[in-house]
Each structure stands twice: as C-alpha cells, then as structure tokens.
C-alpha cells in the first residue's frame, strides 16, 4: 500500500510541475499583454508549494519503507537489511540510484518553494524563474518515473535485504550527499533566475538570485569538505583528495559557483559583466548536470556511482542537452538585447573580479579536461591514458596559486577606480606576515621544500590581509567581513594541504604483540588484536598503545571489519589529533600467529584542510545572513533621529 502511495504522490508532483511550468511562463508576460498573467503567477506559486508537498510525501514514504524494512519494495530489498542501525536505514534511502534521484528532486522542489517564498525582484521575474524550475522538476520526475522508479515491487518479497555497501555506512556519508545535493541543485535556482532574466529582460536578477547562489555555494563548500574528510578517515590511506572523477564532478560546480558569486557582485554593484554573469549561472548548473551524468550514467564507475544502466545514461544525456542547449539558445537569442558595457578603470574592483574569473575558468578547464579527456580519447581512437594527481599538480596548482596571490588585492580596491598605491600600502602588514610565515617554515620544517615555503607565505598573505581587514574595518559593513573570512579560509586550507602533502611521515610494518613502531615523533606498541561484534559486522580490533616513555599515554583501536550481509570487508581507521597534527592508524592484513600489518601516518596540519572549508562556509553564511536580514531593496532610509 505504502509504495503505491509514494508512486501516486510522484505522479501528482509531475502534474503540478507541469502546471507550474506553464503558469510560471505565462505569468512572465506583462499584465497589459495578458489578462490572465496575474492569475497565472498565483497558480505558479501554489503549484510550487503543492509540488514540494507531494515530493516530500513520496520521499517520506520511501524513508518509511526503509525504516520498517519493507522488502517488497525492490530498492529497499537491494539496499537495506534488518540488522542495519536505524541511522543507516535512513541514509540507505539515498545510498542507491533511485533514492538519490528522489532526493535530487526533493531538493529541487525545496528550492522552487524557496524561490516562491523568498522571491525578490519583480513578480514577472519570479514567475518566470518558477516556470523554468518547473520544467527542470518535470524533466527529473519523468526520469524517475520512467527509468528509476523507487517504488517498484518485488514478488515474492525476500525475507532479508541485501544490505548497504559498508563504505557508505558511516556518519560522514549520512550528511554528505544531502549537503552536496543542496549545492548541486541549488545552482538550479541561479540557472532559473538567469533564464528568467533572459525571458523577461529584467536586470535586477543578480540581486534577486544572490541568496540562492550563496546557499548553493555554502552547501557545495561543506559538501566537498565533508566528502574529502570522509575519504581521509574511511579509505585508510591518509589521503584527502584523490582527483577521482567523482570528486572532480563536485569540484567543477564549486569553481563555477565561486566565479559566479564574484561576477554577480560586479553585475549587482556596478552593472558590469551582465551577459557574462548570465552565462556563468547557466554554466554552473550545467556543470552540476554533467557531474550527475558522469556519476549516474556509469561512464565512470566508483564507490559513488550506483547506476550502470545505459537507458538512464541516455535519458540523462537527452535531459542535459535540452537544458543546456535550451538555455544557451535563449542566451544567444536574448543576451544581445541586454544593455552591456560598464565603465571602470584598469585599476578597480571590477578588474580584480574579472581576473578572479579568468583564473577560475582556467582551473575549471584543467579539471574538466583532465576528467573528460581520457574518456574522449578512448572513444576516439581507443588509446587509454590515466590523468592522475601529477597532471593537476602541473596545471591546476600553478594557476590556482597565481589566483591566490591576487585575492587580497581585490577587496582593497574601490569600484570603478581604485588606488593601487594605497591598496598596496594597506597590505604591508599582510606582506610582513607572509614573509614571516615563509621564513618560519624555512627554519622549522625539515626537509625543506620551496613549494612549502611558497605555500605558507601565500597562506600568511591571505590570512594576514583578512586579519588586517577585520581589525581596520571594525564596525564597517559586514560584507567586507564575509569576504575576509572566506579568503582567510582559503589560506587555512592551503596550509593544511601543504603540511599534509609535503611533510607527512609514514610507517608500515608487520607487528606482533609487544612490537614497537616509530612514526614521526610517536612511539607505538602493538598489544594484540581482539574480535568484536558490531551491530551488523564483525571486527578485528587492534589495540595499539601510544607510548610516552615507558608509560601508556592512550590506546588507539583501528579495526578491520567484515560485513557478512554484504560480504565485504573494510578498514576503520583510528585518528588522534592535537588540532595541529594527526596521528592516523590503519590495520592491514592478518599475517598469522598474532601478527598484523599496521600502517601509521603523521599528517601535520591535516585538520586545517577541513577547518579552512568551514571558515569559508562561515564567510558565506555571514553574507547570506546579511542578505536575508534586508527584506527588500528599499531606498536608503532617512537616518534615525538620535534619542
């Protein structure tokens, strides 16, 4: 019964999305041309809310089926198990292709609801944006109903489910996909606003869409940081970023969204780069769609890729071609009618924002080509190549480094015409901090790496400039604070990346009871392995004492787990952090007679990688909070009389 309810809810949602598309686009017409336009707008708003309710109902139904282990539903039977802890029954909802697409549509509907509720800008602009959002929702609902129906039944229902990939049974993965989807799909709102601006020809769209750009960017930043953290502690190799195509698929939208945030700022404040900002908004969501295609079609196979069904790949490809092609067609047709050409000097905020975009587009090209070129080459002449970390170290890294050098300069230059000398003078303390940071690393850290010295100097430059900003401009507008925080976060992450990549020490040994291992400054004693029983796994738990002289300081317990329901095994690492340095242990294979392989890593500054992401996201949240506090773009109010 419950499955049919979900199915029915999806059908209602599809109908409402079509109503929303039709009504929204009708409502985009001016009242004097269409008598029903005002009514249509009301219908579009209502349909947006209705669609949200029905998609949420469908999602709730599927969640209920997972929680109650209703194995008559195929998706539940294939991806769940009665012994799984409750939290992984719930996260199992999106730990598979069908459920994750339903989550995708739920997030899309949420954004449609948000556009309807918060919609700034003119009523025609909002209406057109709702219409486009409705078209997108309809396309994805069709995709779900025809190729990935999560409510298909099994007859007879199996007695027990097949379980969930143990790699995905992890608290980090519980919030990672929803967060990432909030980012991916959040770019749909900017996309819809951009398309709406092209349809209606309204210029205030960059301001209206900004809260949505910010929400999407914050969610993407958190989602990528979470994913990288998960890979760090779960995969057991101490690495935090593998340039895996699936990771790249999330990085590309982030890079474009970052470019969009900066370009849209110029469009909003000085009317510059109007058409370019529209193009970026279209490109951002296109990257999300391409990422979805790459992951979902089975073109790439990895832990994250659940689907390997060619019909789905084909359907998504058609969807992408229609969405991107349609938007670009609209752009080519309507963009020339927009007023273009801003006036600004060579030394100005606008120039810096433009340079930001130049570099971000280039690094995005590096990721894009690096991810897709091997596929294209293979299809073209069957040659197989690998594009691994060394490629990105040679292309992505130097261009991104150049961008970071320029970051502190931007916020110090005025719109239209800046004073370069004054800006540089104000940055003298930051430069001093940069030199000190570089010298400190040169003296303290061994072995010496030129890249390491440069990385810390640039990190000092970024954090120093932000600190100076925060101190000097006390009481100034909080947008400056938001930018300073986000830019400082970049510096923090850079330190973490440099520390971990360059100065990580590691040890690998076969250890028996009582054996001693040295790694970095630590001494470890292997105290044997015990067998433990988890809720749905068996674990071999190593007891490794961290020694302080002859005294045991603490005991760390990395595990090797076997998930019998899924028939897989995986490592569970043990990490002890001082905040400045991680000691990371992973248990390897059983070598017989109480001997096991043990891997140990000491990663200096590793926590900074994710701390920096958090700081960046906080910058975004501060900016968002300020935006939402100002209800409507009202003209500046008269100053309050003093009491």
């Amino acid at each position, binding site marked *: 019964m419950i499955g049919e309810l979900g199915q029915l809810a999806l059908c209602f949602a599809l109908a409402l999305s079509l109503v929303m598309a039709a009504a929204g686009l009708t409502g985009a017409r001016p009242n004097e041309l269409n008598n029903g336009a005002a009514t249509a707008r009301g219908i579009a708003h209502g349909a947006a809310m209705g669609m949200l309710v029905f998609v949420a109902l469908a999602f709730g139904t599927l969640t209920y089926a997972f929680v109650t282990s209703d194995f008559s539903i195929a998706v539940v039977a294939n991806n769940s198990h009665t012994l799984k802890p409750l939290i992984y029954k719930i996260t199992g909802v999106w730990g598979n292709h069908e459920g994750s697409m339903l989550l995708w549509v739920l997030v899309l509907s949420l954004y449609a609801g948000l556009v309807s509720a918060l919609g700034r800008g003119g009523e025609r602009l909002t209406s057109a944006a709702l219409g486009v959002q409705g078209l997108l929702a309809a396309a994805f609902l069709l995709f779900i109903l025809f190729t990935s129906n999560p409510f298909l039944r099994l007859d007879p229902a199996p007695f027990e489910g097949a379980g969930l990939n143990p790699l995905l049974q992890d608290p980090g993965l519980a919030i990672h996909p929803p967060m990432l989807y909030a980012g991916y799909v959040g770019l749909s709102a900017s996309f819809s606003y951009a398309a709406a601006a092209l349809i209606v020809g309204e210029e205030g769209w960059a301001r209206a869409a900004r809260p949505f750009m910010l929400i999407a960017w914050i969610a993407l930043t958190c989602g990528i940081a979470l994913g990288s953290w998960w890979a760090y502690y779960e995969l057991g190799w101490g690495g935090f970023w593998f340039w895996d195509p699936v990771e790249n698929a999330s990085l590309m939208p982030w890079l474009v969204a970052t470019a969009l945030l900066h370009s849209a700022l110029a469009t909003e404040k000085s009317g*510059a780069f109007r058409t370019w900002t529209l193009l970026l908004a279209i490109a951002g969501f296109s990257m999300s769609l391409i990422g979805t295609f790459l992951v979902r079609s089975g073109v790439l196979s990895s832990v994250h890729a659940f689907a390997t069904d060619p019909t789905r790949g084909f359907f998504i490809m058609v969807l992408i071609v229609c969405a991107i092609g349609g938007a670009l067609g609209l752009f080519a047709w309507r963009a020339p009618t927009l007023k273009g*050409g801003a006036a600004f000097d060579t030394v100005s905020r606008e120039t810096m924002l433009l340079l930001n975009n*130049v570099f971000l587009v280039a690094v995005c090209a590096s990721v894009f*080509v690096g991810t897709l070129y091997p596929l294209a080459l293979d299809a073209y002449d069957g040659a197989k190549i690998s*594009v691994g970390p060394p*490629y990105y170290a040679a292309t992505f890294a130097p261009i991104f480094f150049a961008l970071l050098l320029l970051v502190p300069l931007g916020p110090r230059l005025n719109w239209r015409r800046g004073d370069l000398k004054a800006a540089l003078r104000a940055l003298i303390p930051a430069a001093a901090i940069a030199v000190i940071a570089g010298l400190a690393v040169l003296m303290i850290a061994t072995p010496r790496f030129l890249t390491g010295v440069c990385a810390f100097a640039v990190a000092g430059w970024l954090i120093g400039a932000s600190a100076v900003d925060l101190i000097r401009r006390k009481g100034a507008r909080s947008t400056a604070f938001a930018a300073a925080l986000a830019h400082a976060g970049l510096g923090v992450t850079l330190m973490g990346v440099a520390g971990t990549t360059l100065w990580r020490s590691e040890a690998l040994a076969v250890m028996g009871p009582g054996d001693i291992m040295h790694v970095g400054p630590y001494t470890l004693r292997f105290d044997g392995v015990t067998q433990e029983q988890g809720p749905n796994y068996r674990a071999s738990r190593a007891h490794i004492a961290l020694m302080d002289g002859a005294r045991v300081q603490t005991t760390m317990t990395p595990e090797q787990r076997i998930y019998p329901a899924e028939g897989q095994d995986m490592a569970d690492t043990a990490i002890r952090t001082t905040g400045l340095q991680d000691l990371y242990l992973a248990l390897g294979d059983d*070598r*017989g007679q109480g001997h096991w392989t043990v891997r140990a890593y000491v990663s200096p500054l590793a926590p900074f990688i994710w701390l920096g992401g958090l700081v960046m996201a906080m910058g975004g949240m501060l900016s968002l909070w300020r935006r939402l506090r100002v209800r409507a773009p009202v003209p500046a109010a008269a100053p309050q009389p003093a009491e």
Partner: protein
Amino acid sequence: MKKFLFFLLLLTAPLVAGSVVAAPVGDNFADPAMEARARNLQRQLRCLVCQGESIDESRASLAAELRHVVRQQMADGRSDRQIEDYLTGRYGNFILMKPPLEADTYFLWAAPFLVLILAGGVAIFVISKARKAVASTEL
C-alpha cells in the same frame, strides 16, 4: 567433494592473498634514499585494476606484484625512466599517473593554459573598452 574443495579454497585464500600483499613490507630497501625513490616511483604508477589508485596505495594483488617488479628493477640498478619504459611497454600509457606529452595528449596539457590565455585576452579587451567608457563619461 566439491564442497570440500571449495572449503579448502576458502581456507587457503587468505594465506595466498596475505603472502602477496606482504611484498611491500618484505621488500623494503634498507637505504632510506632508495626507499623514498621507490615510494615516489610507486606513486607515479597506476594500479591497473583499481579506481584511480596508485600501486603505492592499492591493496590489490596486482599492485603488490607491480611494487615487487619496481623494487626488483631498482635493485638491479635501473633508472626510474627505464622502469617506467619497461612498464609502459607492457601495459601502455594507462599505467602512468602523469600522462606523457605526446601527439595524443598535446591538447590535454595545453588546454588549461590555452583557456587562461584566451580568457586573459578577452579580459584585456573588456577592460580596455570599460576604460574608454570611463574616459567618455568624464569628457
């Protein structure tokens, strides 16, 4: 009988797997410089049966065998280049984490910098236009 054989296979499987994965630990060079060179080289080589992992990281038995090959050839005094050539001869360029610069990959290597130059050119054009606009409004 079949069942019994299968059971035997199950029993021996961990031993076989274990002894192969043992390679990196058993093979370690005593000389730290040689060991560092080996690790570095291992990171440049892809585990052919894994998802984007290098042979340095992978637990697959093929990776263990390749690590063994690398270390054996190093012990024989071969250079990194010779070892890479030997491996690409057998497995093709797919094994190299860093794609070689060849006719096939010119575009791959050039693309990011081409985009940078192109976007930079457009930016210069846009800035010069914006400057003229400033000049004309100030007249």
